[in-house]
């Protein structure tokens, strides 16, 4: 039975708050973990183990003056971070965190996803690209050369990596015969294997390309502080900057969720409840991305493009052809 309007509204509200909480914890976790990778402690002053650090940061950012730089286009400048954050959060509307669940102490059944359209994966990638409009508009409207360079880089990077990302995912889609995310999870249960095993090449390409999509080290050229100050959010401060940062982390969490669904069987798993499995698998990817960040330096821009067009794209295409041959042979 599909959930009614009110139930969906409540679920969305809860989910957005959970994701925001996850974002706050993620900033703390990343700083702590990077600290340990660099043999130091990381933030440990505010609250136990520094756990209240995100709240302290929020308090600081809220107090900051909200200003619009001279020569900026006010409306676009204000709306850009909203676009990014909105589209990053929207991805979670199709992410399934489990199957059906009964609300405790009642016998009311709900689904642990907001929506399950049969084009969920397409929607995810559409929204992933949409968040770059925020970066593009934000960089263009702040009337600063660094911002403009940052947003140009962001968009060209997106164009280069979106292709390989989609091609890497198509292998999974061919094997599961569906674009629905719950369908992909069920297909992995049906086949009795996580798609990371048969689609390992696709998995590696997905990992690299999604790192570029969420512009994290080593592919964080849109905000390379060495040459571009802070890229597209150079002119942003206070909560608007926080929204850009928020969008980036939410996109990272979103891509981790999608990766755990596509390659690690999503919420399916023995003993533990579905959402817990989902969180554990997402945690693996978040840890991996922090590990990558603490290990690799930022790549040069031409090498980024070389990797995207001359390595990942042919590899993804080959993977796609082999997968389609095998799927056609077995059918």
């Amino acid at each position, binding site marked *: 039975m599909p959930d009614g309007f009110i139930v969906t509204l409540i679920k969305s509200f809860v989910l957005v708050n959970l994701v925001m909480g996850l974002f706050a914890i993620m900033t703390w976790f990343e700083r702590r973990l990077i600290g340990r*990778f660099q*043999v*130091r402690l990381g933030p440990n002053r505010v609250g136990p183990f520094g756990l209240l650090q995100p709240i302290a940061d929020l308090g600081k950012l809220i107090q900051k003056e909200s200003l619009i730089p001279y020569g900026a286009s006010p409306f676009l400048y204000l709306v850009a971070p909203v676009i990014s954050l909105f589209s990053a959060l929207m991805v979670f509307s199709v992410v399934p965190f489990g199957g059906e669940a009964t609300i405790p102490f009642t016998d009311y059944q709900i689904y642990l996803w907001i929506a399950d359209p049969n084009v969920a994966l397409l929607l995810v990638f559409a929204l992933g690209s949409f968040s770059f409009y925020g970066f593009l508009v934000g960089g263009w409207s702040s009337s600063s050369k660094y911002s403009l360079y940052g947003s140009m880089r962001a968009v060209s990077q997106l164009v280069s990596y979106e292709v390989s990302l989609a091609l890497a995912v198509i292998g999974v889609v061919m094997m599961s015969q569906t674009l629905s995310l719950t369908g992909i999870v069920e297909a992995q249960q049906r086949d009795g294997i996580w798609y990371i095993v048969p689609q390992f090449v696709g998995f590696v390409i997905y990992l690299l390309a999604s790192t570029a999509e969420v512009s994290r080290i080593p592919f964080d050229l849109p905000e390379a502080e060495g040459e571009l100050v802070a890229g597209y959010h150079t002119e942003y401060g206070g909560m608007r900057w926080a929204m850009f940062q928020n969008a980036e982390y939410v996109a990272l969490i979103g891509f981790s969720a999608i990766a755990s669904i596509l390659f690690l069987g999503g919420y399916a798993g023995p003993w533990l409840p579905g959402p817990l499995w989902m969180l554990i698998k997402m945690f693996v990817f978040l840890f991996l991305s922090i*590990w990558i960040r603490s290990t*690799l330096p930022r790549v040069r821009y031409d090498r980024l493009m070389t990797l995207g067009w001359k390595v990942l794209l042919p590899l993804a295409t080959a993977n796609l052809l082999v997968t389609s041959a095998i799927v056609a042979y077995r059918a």
Partner: protein
Amino acid sequence: MAVTDNLKGFGVTFRHLFRKPVTQQFPEYKRPVYPRFRGRHRLHRHENGLEKCVGCSLCAAACPADCIRVVAAENTVEERYSAGERYARIYEINMTRCIFCGYCELACPFDAITLGNDYELAEMSRDALVYTKEMLLEPSPAPRRTPVAPVDPYDIPAQDGLA
């Protein structure tokens, strides 16, 4: 190979994850400063309690940052502060300007001023950083807060090994 080298790098960072952090938690743990560390100044007294400073202003003359202000006055029989003819009626060091070079210490003919070990000198206002004679004179109202490393490992005679 580029790929294996990268994987090696991941191994290195992963090993570092399990090392003990080298962080020293500052306000709780203060790393001892070197014995010759130059920090907050001190004005010293003779053993009988008289101030060593005679208000000659040589320190103020030597100061490259021009942060010392000395106003001298005559000692009298009733009011005797220092061992010499005169004493420093006003002795101020402007800590916002001081560069802790230690020239005042070198210039002083009576070893009246030395640079101590305290470096935690932050204040909320600039006025509070103009240290008066009362603040600088030993025994200082501000307790010595900075631990000092033992002198021995550093106290090597200059002629050692040459003789």
